[in-house]
């Protein structure tokens, strides 16, 4: 009967708090996107796009490369998630940092790293780059859930004669499936809307809807066609989200938190998590190491000159100093997290419908960027050049991810604890502060790390808004890598390598 009980959530009791995230998203996301669609979307152009064989081919390639990338990501990431959620071993923290770091790196950095290894463009490098990016999505969303699955249940199944595969399918999978489906949906969307990776590794023959939107809108000035493509892209993404939500059963059963186990003494068991972790690290880290290598080696000569330049010098290719770029990115990341995490917590803690908060996932960065510069261009809302505007937009983009990162943890809090708190005299707010927040602390730390990561790595929408005084690291890296000159390129790789090293350190602590 517990399932039928009313849940005295803070937010359901005080619905006014829910207005804050709704208003935030309405102003900074819904309004600009709706404005661009209302002004530039025409059904006749949409029909033309659907009837165009070349553009249909672009849509088909976008779809199948995204599906393949998602499946490959799951193949690499799920075993690694199991190893890191279930076992503790020396270097596990570093492994986690290495596997989660690429998510915050600009697409151009990872793509350049893959290119440095494969020395060719095409489908395989694209898929590899997508796997490198998205392993962290699975790790960060499924990991907390998997670590909560009670080991004793698995032991119980084993003592009842279940093989490990049966134990997984009957005991573990039902408890982690909603997190896996949620994470896989995100991975699909990222791959489907991938732009930086396609731009560098796709060459002239491999185009996706996202790169075509940019080409049509920016290079060809054909805003109507770009808007029609953006709508087609959004329809496909919404369909995938709808299917995923239908097949995901929210698991409201409380999962007793199960601490990671030390590696077992039997060699067979001891080696498996280590081998899985090592394989994932090789797949993910090699492009990152290639980036670091390129920052230190010029013409087969070892040199620290690029590092000296970014840490204390200046670059003619950048209008501001590299040090200011680093500080700007960090400040933006902190501001974005301060906005995003509390809003996400309000949404994740509520029982209110949250389809609205998935919308930023369904709309590409290029579509949002166009909407922002069109909408926030005239007084009294001429905010597109304001510095504060960039972290606000970063918070918009991070919001759906952070909500998804918090949701499994908020759902895992048993109703009975809230009931116990209430019968001890605690109001819903006191229960939230004293009982729920302490339980959510690890998830909140991860959510903060994720929000900062999104802000640090955001490239698409920022490129529409960035000015010389507000250049972020990804923008600076793209500018440097896009310019000729060995020293400039090497400085770009050094900035990218700095992001790799800093994010590995930061993410391993989050």
């Amino acid at each position, binding site marked *: *009967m517990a399932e039928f*009980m009313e849940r005295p959530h803070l937010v359901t009791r005080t619905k006014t708090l829910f207005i804050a995230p709704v208003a935030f998203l309405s102003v900074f996301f819904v309004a600009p996107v709706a404005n661009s669609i209302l002004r530039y979307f025409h059904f006749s152009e949409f029909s033309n796009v659907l009837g165009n064989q070349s553009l249909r081919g672009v849509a088909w390639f976008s779809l199948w490369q995204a599906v393949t990338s998602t499946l490959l990501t799951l193949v690499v990431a799920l075993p690694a998630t199991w190893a890191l959620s279930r076992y503790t071993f020396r270097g596990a923290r570093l492994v986690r940092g290495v596997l989660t770091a690429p998510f915050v790196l600009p697409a151009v950095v990872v793509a350049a790293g893959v290119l440095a290894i494969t020395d060719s463009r095409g489908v395989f490098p694209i898929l590899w780059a997508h796997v490198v990016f998205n392993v962290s999505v699975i790790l960060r969303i499924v990991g907390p859930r998997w670590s909560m699955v009670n080991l004793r249940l698995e032991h119980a199944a084993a003592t009842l004669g279940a093989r490990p595969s049966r134990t997984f399918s009957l005991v573990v999978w039902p408890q982690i499936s909603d997190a896996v489906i949620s994470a896989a949906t995100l991975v699909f969307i990222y791959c489907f809307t991938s732009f930086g990776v396609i731009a560098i590794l796709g060459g002239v023959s491999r185009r996706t809807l996202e790169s075509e939107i940019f080409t049509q809108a920016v290079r060809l000035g054909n805003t109507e066609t770009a808007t029609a493509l953006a709508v087609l892209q959004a329809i496909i993404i919404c369909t995938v989200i709808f299917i995923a939500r239908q097949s995901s059963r929210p698991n409201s059963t409380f999962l007793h938190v199960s601490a990671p186990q030390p590696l077992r003494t039997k060699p067979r068991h001891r080696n498996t998590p280590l081998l899985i972790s090592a394989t994932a690290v090789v797949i993910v880290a090699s492009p990152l190491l290639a980036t670091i290598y390129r920052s230190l080696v010029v013409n087969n000569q070892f040199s620290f000159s690029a590092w000296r330049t970014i840490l204390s010098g200046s670059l003619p290719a950048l209008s501001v100093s590299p040090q200011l770029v680093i500080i700007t990115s960090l400040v933006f990341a902190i501001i974005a997290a301060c906005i995003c995490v509390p809003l996400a917590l309000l949404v994740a803690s509520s029982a209110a419908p949250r389809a609205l908060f998935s919308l930023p996932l369904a709309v590409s960065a290029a579509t949002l960027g166009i909407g922002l510069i069109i909408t926030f261009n005239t007084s009294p809302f001429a905010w597109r050049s304001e510095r504060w505007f960039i972290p606000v937009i970063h918070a918009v983009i991070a919001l759906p991810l952070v909500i998804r990162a918090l949701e499994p943890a908020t759902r895992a809090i048993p109703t009975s604890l809230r*009931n116990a708190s*209430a*019968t*001890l*005299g605690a109001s819903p707010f006191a229960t939230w502060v004293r*009982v729920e927040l302490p339980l959510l602390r690890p998830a909140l730390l991860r959510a903060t790390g994720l929000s900062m990561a999104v802000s640090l790595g955001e490239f698409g929408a920022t490129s529409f808004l960035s000015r010389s005084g507000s250049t972020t690291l990804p923008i600076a890296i793209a500018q440097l890598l896009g310019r000729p000159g060995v020293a400039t390129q090497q400085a770009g790789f050094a900035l990218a390598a700095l992001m790799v090293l800093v994010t590995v350190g930061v993410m391993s602590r989050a």
Partner: protein
Amino acid sequence: MLKVSNLSVEFGNTVIVDNISFTVPTGETLAITGPSGIGKTTLLHAICGIVRTTHGTIHIDNTDISSLPTHKRGIGLISQTGDLFPTMTVSQNIEFGLRIVKMPQTDRTTRVQELLEMLNLTHLAHRNVSELSGGEARRIALARALAPQPQVLLLDEPLSGLDQNTHDALMSDLARVLKQTATTALLVTHDLSEAELLAETTFTFPHK
């Protein structure tokens, strides 16, 4: 005194609790017995306000508390699992309700110590709740529920799932503590021996 009059609970079209009435005099314990799944727990949840009632009223000492939210009813609840807060120590769990009513620190410490001694739990004061045995966790849940001195205490099969020795020891402690504190209590159980030892009167939950 707890007085429940014509209480009904429905979830959708399903009637879970149907027109139940009883009275528990102050300082006494009423045992509610009946088979599993018949609605005993739902009845307790309705009394403490976790579940909304469809019909009926609940009075404590002639005050109608039916429309009050759970945290304002002054009713304590001990569930089958104890539901200790996993991020707090044993002492912090026990003093939770006292912190909510903003009792001064010195008084809180005294009250917690008093309860720990009453239930022979002093050695566990600073223990993490994840390190407790089943019997210890139930004792802490009892101490925590008694700390704010609720007007009524609801006990939802507090002895279920314990081994015989722990069960007997805790039952004896429970009987002693309920008498010592003169708490008005409602005990849900399907064990008639528990009902006989702990309660002055027994109410058999009617079959649907």
